[in-house]
């Protein structure tokens, strides 16, 4: 069950990223295309003035769910100068406090967002260009934030049990290996 959620989260954010990129690229091509007399009659009928708006919405959705994914992978950076100096018992307490802070904040935000979305549902407000119902657009706030809160609690639980935090290793980039010898010939020394 949880694994399906993890997988869905990954697929969602990666495909939003790809879709937004293609969307803006196509809209740029379209603008160029309308500048060419030969293509003009075909392209002028297609309106993609909504592309920017859709791109923004896609990225906001990506950001909300991606932030939750980031909690799971430990990509959110904090200041660890002080806590590294503490003795292990205090350190554990402070880190747990930090994680609960995260869970609390995202929960509060999620609840505020949910209230807001429910209010919007009773109106027929729509977004400016796409004319999507606003409540659908804003639904990413409660959904993303609750998911993030849940991820914080998960990390908390794992830390309580094992004392391990997810750690994002910036030096570890797939496809780049640190080889002990020079992987390319650089001529004679």
């Amino acid at each position, binding site marked *: 069950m949880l694994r399906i959620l993890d997988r869905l989260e990954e697929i969602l*954010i990666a495909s939003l990223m790809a879709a937004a990129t293609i969307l803006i690229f196509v809209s740029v091509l379209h603008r160029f295309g309308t500048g060419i007399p030969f293509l003009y009659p075909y392209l002028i009928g297609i309106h993609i003035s909504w592309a920017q708006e859709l791109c923004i919405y896609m990225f906001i959705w990506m950001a909300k769910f*991606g932030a939750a994914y980031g909690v799971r992978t430990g990509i959110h950076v904090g*200041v660890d100068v002080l806590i590294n100096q503490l003795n292990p018992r205090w350190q554990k307490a402070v880190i747990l406090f930090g994680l609960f802070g995260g869970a609390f904040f995202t929960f509060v935000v999620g609840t505020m967002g949910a209230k807001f979305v429910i209010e919007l549902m009773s109106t027929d407000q729509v977004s400016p260009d796409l004319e999507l119902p606003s409540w659908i657009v804003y639904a990413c706030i409660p959904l993303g934030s609750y998911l993030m809160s849940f991820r914080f609690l998960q990390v908390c639980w794992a830390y309580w049990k094992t004392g391990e935090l997810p750690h994002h290793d910036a030096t570890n980039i797939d496809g780049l290996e640190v080889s002990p010898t020079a992987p390319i010939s650089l001529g004679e020394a």
Partner: protein
Amino acid sequence: MSAALIFGLLFALMLTGMPISISLGLTVLTFLFTMTEVPIESVGLKLFSGLDNFGIMAIPFFILAGTFLTRGGVARRMIAFTTSLVGHLPGGLGLAGVAACAMFAAISGSSVATVVAIGSIMMPAMVEHGYPRRFGVGVISTSGALGILVPPSIILVLYGVSTNTSIGALFMAGIVPGVMLALMLAFVTWFIAWRNGYPRMKKATLAQQWTAFRESVWGLLLIVIVLGGIYGGIFTPTEAAAVAAVYAFFITVFVYKELKLREVSKVLLQAASMSSMLLYIITNAVLFSFLMTHEQIPQEMAAWIITKHFSPWMFLLVVNVLLLAAGNVMDPSSILLIMAPILFPLATNIGINPVHLGILMIVNTEVGLCHPPVGLNLYIASGIAKMGISEITVAVLPWLCAMLIFLGLITYIPEISLWLPRLLGMI
């Protein structure tokens, strides 16, 4: 009074090690809830509207382009090219490293990626050719910091968005300082190598140079597309970034063939997660600056500065000290997002150009990347070179001194940053 409370709370929360984004958000929430009458619902709305800006969306696109290129063997080709050009000079591989960092920085826009991509190839190569390990680490970890100054840079976009400064003008303003810093770092490298008689490479023939250039030209073209497109008014910065991402995908998969199509989803996920992390800090930083403005803190500070007759000279000194101190504990994007909305109104009030302030802030955070305790570049270099942090700290000293001199120049000679955008009529 409220300023002291807000910052006190923020620092206390940050020191617990919770993510910076969460500390910002919790500070705002606590303060609004206990001290003000602001309807708390408006906060929820801000979490959405804070990102509702097409300019911000350049960030995920640039990150995607950078992620593709970091994995795509572009770094290797650039190193081969710069080595063929300057390898025969004293400290040749070191100089080639600086030049490769400057070029790669331009296409990746991130200093961490630059250190990893160039360092993982260059450091072992330098050791193999008889350079001391320390020298290699010093060169790469400081040159990697060029990544956030040389355009297109993600941090410059952040500054542009949070202060409403033209991103195009900022990009142009970053060029001269970027080249200048690269030259200064190269000079230090050359001088150390020349004094110690480090090995040189055999001079490459013209034909070899040409081949190396042709191999790496695809990566270099990206800079031309982005900067040329923005300056020529063909795209907005965000569109340029999207085009750059598609272009990067195209060259890594089809031209260099370093990435298989099925690995693309991994790149997407990695870029999406990195962007979300930044966008999440941005959202909370927007909340924070909303609180600042609501409490009129920048305005009060500005008024205070005016009554005290602070000269721009003094003000810039204070800004430098403040940012260098912040650089001890925070990463560049957080510093920028928290400090820019506060410093910007103050600086414009006493007649400092916003573009100059932006470049100044970025050079400050660059220095912060290269010195302990949280010099990110040092940690990454230490991971690659398998050296301890304290040893690396000593190793980077000569280059760090050059960077501090450079910071002084940037601070007090605004024309270094402003000359090019002014020449192009962008400011």
